């Protein structure tokens, strides 16, 4: 009797990711987001015409990890920089990758106007409710009562205002073609996130305007929790405030099955 052993590859690094080890803290979900985006770029076969725009934040070195062209923006200005690139190179696929401080604080003007103009770019918005890179200050998405190093008694909405729900806010703009929120805290949600990333690129490929996927993310280092506890914290605290859902899906996208 003979047995044949066949070797099957079930998991490997996407073509669009480089072999460079990531500098993110252990358990950080930035890495998952990177991987999903790279997988979709591979699946769409657009690696060679994709240009990424990195933010200032923990993902400042994102350009080291994606095997496609990349630029590095000033803090918050990624949508403006992406606009400049897209206007000169309309047939390229341009995406930004931004944190909550970058997109919703210092870059609020840039993101609103990019969405308002219906700028045909794709935005990945990593909402981890904190400033990761500068070690844990309050972000515009920090939850009420959440302690950070610049809201040491917890975010008091009376003086520090309310967290911003960026997906809901941007979905209101006529220029937006696709605006959704997903989460990275478990396999089911990660699969849903990947589909949304796919649709966000499809939006751009079909010229349907501004697309953004908000990805709820963890920062165990600055939340002061273990990676596992962080995933739980995200599920228990962030999702009630930031519901997962589709806030704007252009009609032409609704037929697409991914």
């Amino acid at each position: 009797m003979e047995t044949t052993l066949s070797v099957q590859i079930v998991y490997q690094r996407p073509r669009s990711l480089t072999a460079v080890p990531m500098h993110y803290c252990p358990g950080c979900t930035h890495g998952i987001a990177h991987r999903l985006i790279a997988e979709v770029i591979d699946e769409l076969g657009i690696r060679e015409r994709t240009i990424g725009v990195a933010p200032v934040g923990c993902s400042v070195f994102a350009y080291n990890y994606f095997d496609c062209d990349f630029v590095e923006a000033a803090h918050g200005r990624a949508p403006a920089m992406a606009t400049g690139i897209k206007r000169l190179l309309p047939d390229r696929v341009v995406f930004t990758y931004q944190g909550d401080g970058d997109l919703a604080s210092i870059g609020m003007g840039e993101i609103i106007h990019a969405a308002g103009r219906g700028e045909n770019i794709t935005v990945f918005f990593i909402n981890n409710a904190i400033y990761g890179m500068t070690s844990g200050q309050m972000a515009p998405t920090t939850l009420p009562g959440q302690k950070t190093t610049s809201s040491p008694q917890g975010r008091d909405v009376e003086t520090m205002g309310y967290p911003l729900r960026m997906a809901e806010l941007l979905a209101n703009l006529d220029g937006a073609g696709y605006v959704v929120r997903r989460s990275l805290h478990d396999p089911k949600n990660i699969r849903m996130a990947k589909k949304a990333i796919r649709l966000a690129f499809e939006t751009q490929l079909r010229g349907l305007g501004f697309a953004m996927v908000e990805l709820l993310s963890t920062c165990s280092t600055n939340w002061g929790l273990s990676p596992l506890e962080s995933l739980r914290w995200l599920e228990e605290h962030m999702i009630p405030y930031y519901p997962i859902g589709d806030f704007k899906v252009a009609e032409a996208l609704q037929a697409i099955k991914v």
Partner: protein
Amino acid sequence: MQTEILIAGFGGQGVLFAGQVLAYAAMDAGCEVTWIPSYGPEMRGGTANCTVIISDEEIGSPLVLNPRGVIALNLPSLDKYEPLVKPGGVLVVNSSLVNRGSRREDIESVFIPASEIAESLGNRRLLNMVALGALVAKLPVLSLDQVKRALEDHLPERHKQFLQANLQALDAGASFALSVSRVGV
């Protein structure tokens, strides 16, 4: 007269705190002192170091190329700083985490199993105080008593329950250093 001490190791080994204890002791002894850390993202999961300078006059540079005393709590720190110790200076190495001996004849090297001593005292995290005790015993700049008093006086209230263990660790490090012979193992 100026004495420079560099303490290096992994982030989380208590490198910065050990330097601060020394700085407090120097301040309380009426000396001029500077404490300066390596800072920024290179600290994330990587290595950390700080430099303490103790002097009897206004201190110029807070960083020096060739410190008189070095504590290396891991191998990368040993490799990086052993060649830089000022001739005649003191090098304290956490031998629990390095797999080689001394490479210098012109300095006094103390290889101390600081992690193991700390564990035998009940807490691995005391290794920084064990190593600091060894350095203080060998470097004629501050007495062990001065350093212990600084710890008593400046340990934050919320950490007071660890005071006795930290004092013991300083003692253990000092007596180990005094019990070993001159020059590397």
